[in-house]
């Protein structure tokens, strides 16, 4: 697979990839220090890291958490997810602190904006303040936050309970109920040898939990067979799909399993180096994850000659993302690790033959690797004994939205949607978004459908919308999400997601006609079929699903005329109003 994105030789040295000198980490430090990335710092950093200035600049501009102009000393980002977001709360805090949404207050103290789902859907509304996750927002908490800002209290001194993140595991299944002793998978691996263990993984029927569902054993087999100067293991902990938070729980409470899965993979494919790519929104997990890595070193579960086995060397580093959903796509993730914008590569070749630094690389989801570690201990039959024919084992779901007990639920594959809804206390359900915005929106007459690769595949997101929720607003929210997260590489998705977003906005504003709906359908179909990567190929799903299953939500908003111009004359006057500081009735056209 080749990079579309910068000179081939500017990935940096392998040594630069992890640790403090990774471009993303250096930029994070600068952002913390100056609330933005100063122009001079870009040139200096480029010189120091021996990268083109344009590469550093393009990385700054690509990731949501880096800024060219100063954010506030308190930089507050409200999730805009339909489950863990609350835009009304954002506006309320903006009003209370006299901040224009998206901007920094003139005194430089505070800025408030929105951000894509931060993975707190079971304990929202939630926000990030200077990168730290704050959950369970209430109006009272908003007032307390405002007081802390007014008083100038450093975020580090805010009450710790505000930042508490709960696991909220509601239903244990195969993985979550089986205990795991650190090192047990590795002992079993050494006992079996790499070939035999690989066969076990293949036989187990384990398929990737990140969405695409590729056979994990086969992926490892291809990578093992590929030749290169080095092999790499990457754990994809970008978990950016709105409504998904199950990897957060695995990383928080089952980190040994995840790291052991990576180490086992390294043992099998012949890699000595693994990376965990962690989304920036989960930075709060970093210290504990690093502590676990240290403990594993001490216990000889990482490092050289693991468990005394001559030549079994493996190390793990953590790379922090900086706010870009596309970096969950495996080739974009690799580009990001190579200190570039997260632009998906041209496939084939796939990462298993040409991945990180163009070397054979396995990229697996967090849950996949945790499952592999368990399979190493308990064998393939144990795993295959659960789930369905084509979907062995279990799936951890992140359940959120209109139900009494949101949280993580683990089911054997083959469970029906209705059963899940019953378990989490969801009544009068209008629709369920299975697999997040990129997945499938289903209506009640489909609630007997089953979870699994043969029917409803899911990376884990399960968002429930009750009878009172405004489904069109939900579809609109997702359209905004994709337009915001499109990497911009290919024309259909770069332009198309924006056209779809604008089309929906027009309908929601009450200016849409049947013509607009037809156009949206045509555009959605084009974007889905002709886009370069999975983001564009799934971005139109909510619109297409809603048009098919809930046509009424569009029809009820349409105006009767055949055609209504897109151009909003009144909105076009906004700039003039701002310049002239007018917002009175006379300054408007309606």
């Amino acid at each position, binding site marked *: 697979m080749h990079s*579309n994105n910068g000179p081939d030789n500017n990935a940096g040295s392998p040594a630069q990839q992890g640790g403090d000198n990774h471009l993303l980490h250096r930029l994070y430090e600068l952002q913390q220090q100056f609330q933005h990335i100063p122009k001079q710092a870009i040139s200096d950093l480029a010189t120091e890291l021996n990268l083109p200035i*344009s590469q550093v600049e393009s990385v700054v501009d690509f990731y949501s958490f880096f800024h060219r102009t100063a954010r506030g000393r308190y930089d507050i980002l409200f999730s805009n997810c339909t489950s863990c977001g609350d835009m009304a709360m954002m506006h309320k805090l903006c009003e209370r602190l006299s901040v224009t949404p998206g901007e920094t207050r003139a005194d430089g103290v505070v800025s408030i904006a929105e951000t894509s789902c931060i993975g707190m859907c079971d304990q929202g509304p939630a926000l990030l303040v200077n990168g730290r996750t704050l959950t369970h927002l209430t109006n009272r908490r908003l007032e307390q936050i405002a007081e802390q800002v007014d008083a100038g209290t450093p975020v580090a001194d805010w009450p710790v309970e505000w930042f508490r993140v709960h696991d909220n595991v509601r239903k244990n299944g195969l993985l979550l109920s089986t205990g795991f002793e650190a090192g047990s998978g590795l002992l079993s691996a050494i006992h079996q040898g790499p070939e035999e263990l690989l066969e076990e993984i293949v036989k187990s029927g384990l398929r990737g939990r990140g969405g695409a569902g590729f056979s994990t054993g086969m992926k490892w087999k291809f990578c093992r067979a590929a030749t290169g100067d080095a092999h790499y293991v990457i754990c994809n902990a970008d978990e950016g799909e709105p409504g998904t938070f199950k990897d957060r729980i695995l990383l928080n409470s089952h980190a040994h399993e995840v790291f052991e899965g990576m180490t086992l993979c390294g043992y099998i494919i012949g890699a000595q180096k693994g990376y965990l790519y962690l989304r920036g929104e989960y930075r709060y997990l970093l210290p504990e994850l690093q502590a676990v890595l240290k403990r594993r070193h001490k216990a000889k579960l990482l490092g050289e000659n693991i468990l005394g086995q001559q030549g079994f060397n493996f190390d793990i580093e953590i790379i922090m993302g900086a706010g870009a959903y596309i970096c969950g796509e495996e080739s974009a993730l690799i580009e990001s690790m190579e200190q570039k914008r997260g632009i998906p590569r041209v496939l084939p070749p796939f990462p298993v033959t040409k991945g990180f630094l163009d070397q054979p690389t396995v990229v697996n989801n967090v849950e996949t690797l945790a499952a592999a570690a368990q399979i190493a201990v308990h064998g393939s039959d144990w795993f295959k004994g659960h789930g369905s024919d084509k979907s062995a084992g279990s799936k951890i779901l992140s359940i959120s939205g209109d139900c009494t007990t949101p949280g993580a639920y683990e089911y054997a594959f083959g469970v029906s949607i209705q059963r899940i809804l019953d378990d989490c206390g969801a009544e009068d359900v209008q629709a369920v978004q299975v697999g997040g915005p990129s997945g499938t929106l289903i209506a009640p007459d489909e609630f007997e459908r089953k979870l699994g690769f043969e029917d409803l595949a899911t990376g884990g997101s399960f968002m429930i919308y009750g009878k009172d929720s405004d489904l069109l607003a939900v579809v609109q929210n997702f359209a905004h999400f994709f337009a915001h997260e499109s990497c911009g590489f290919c024309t259909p998705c770069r332009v198309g997601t924006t056209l779809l977003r604008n089309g929906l906005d027009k309908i929601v504003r009450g200016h849409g006609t049947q013509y607009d709906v037809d156009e949206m359908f045509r555009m959605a179909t084009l974007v889905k079929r*002709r886009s370069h990567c999975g983001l564009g190929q799934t971005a139109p799903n909510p619109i297409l699903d809603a048009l098919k299953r809930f046509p009424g939500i569009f029809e009820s908003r349409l105006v009767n005329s055949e055609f209504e111009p897109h151009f909003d004359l009144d909105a076009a006057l906004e700039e003039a109003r701002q310049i002239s500081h007018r917002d009175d009735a006379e300054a408007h056209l309606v």
Partner: protein
Amino acid sequence: MSEANNNTIIIDGKEIPFTEGQTIMDAALAADIYIPHLCHRPGLKPHGSCKLCTVEVNGRSASACTLPAASGQEVSNNTEALTEVRKTITQMLFVEGNHFCPSCEKTGDCTLQAVAYHLDMLDGHFPQFYPKREVDASHESIVLDRDRCIMCELCVRASREVDGKDVFAITGRGVDAKLIVNSASGKLADTDITTDDLAAHICPVGAILIKEHGYETPIGRRTFDLHTIAEPGLEPVILRKGKHADEH
């Protein structure tokens, strides 16, 4: 339709040969078959971003410029449905930038415009985005007018792969993507680009222009007044038109 032999593919019913390592685009161009394209130029690393070369290979959508040719492939190229798709994509490129063709120096020599004619595109169809983009006139002989940039990265690749420099890059994300210049000031004047560079001439639209050569060839005698874009072997002609008598 005949069964494809070893090392042949079928494009719109016609069997054509390919050699190992060629893409569908390479094989098609070698056989004088036109597959519309904007971000592709023979000799530069395939990019796969504009999606104008979208074809259907055994029923699946693919980019001809990046997909390796393989025997057994049945490729649909010149079909009504694909022309419609390509027309829509071209309209998308037009509305996302600011293209005032009548007042653009490149008119008649512009590949985007020629492709639009080829696809019978009559208007932009979609609402204009009217982005605000900067002009960089700092360089003594080259001007960069970002209004017309379609993010094809031909200049980016030409500078890196042929000129041995690294003058251009794309920054930003989504619709905010834009072309930047690799210098501390961000200005073209502070780079080592010259009019001898391929990067100075390769732009398929009027985003990179050579100064003081405006309207040397009168309208009516420009590249696409004399040729159609689908003509075989036109690439060198298109490129030559970007150059001028006193350059090499």
